[in-house]
């Protein structure tokens, strides 16, 4: 009787061990999906996890930074940047996800960094991108259960 119970327990343990990697894989895929969603639309990664406060905050903060940055005629970098700084700027700007397209749409007259506010606009746009990447990474980590 004891041997039978022991054998059954061993079988249950093995089944659980086999199921664990599959569950981990599902969780990882889910976490990556939330991270990518958060990058594409600021706050979406948190909204999908029902973290409404963070979702609304990131959407609003990144949105305002992009809106004001583009309105100040900051430099929105393109993929054909001539040097390493332009490439880094492009990567930072891309961090805003879909808002990058929105910024292109808002900035009708093109960048003007001959004034202080144009320079500020460039920083606003880059900060929005980096902040959104940070938020997307947070959404990914939260989905993996590492952060709350």
């Amino acid at each position: 009787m004891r041997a039978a119970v022991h054998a059954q327990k061993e079988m249950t343990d093995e089944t659980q061990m086999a199921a664990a990697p599959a569950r981990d894989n599902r969780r990882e895929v889910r976490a990556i999906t939330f991270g990518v969603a958060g990058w594409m639309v600021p706050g979406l990664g948190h909204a999908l996890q029902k973290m409404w406060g963070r979702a609304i905050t990131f959407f609003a903060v990144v949105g305002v930074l992009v809106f004001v940055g583009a309105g100040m005629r900051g430099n929105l970098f393109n993929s054909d940047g001539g040097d390493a700084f332009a490439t880094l700027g492009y990567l930072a700007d891309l961090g805003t996800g879909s808002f990058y397209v929105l910024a292109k749409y808002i900035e009708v007259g093109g960048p003007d960094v001959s004034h202080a506010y144009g320079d500020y606009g460039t920083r606003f746009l880059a900060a929005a991108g980096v902040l959104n990447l940070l938020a997307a990474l947070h959404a990914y980590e939260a989905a993996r259960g590492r952060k709350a």
Partner: protein
Amino acid sequence: MPMKPRGAGKLDLAMKFHLSHLQGMLLFALLISIAFGFLSRRRPLDRVKYIAWSLLLFLLFGIGIGWAMYPFSR
């Protein structure tokens, strides 16, 4: 045939935010502090404390560095 002006057909919000250095810094510090507060704290009271502390440090360092650069500005 008249040429189309640059950006024609795009959304023209006619936005031009002419902010001063101080206004730009204030807005930037406030937005980033709020985002950091929500990112790193869970409880509302902790968030408010973090946002206030972060904003204070942003402004202190910003104005401090501004004053430190003053002798070299001309």
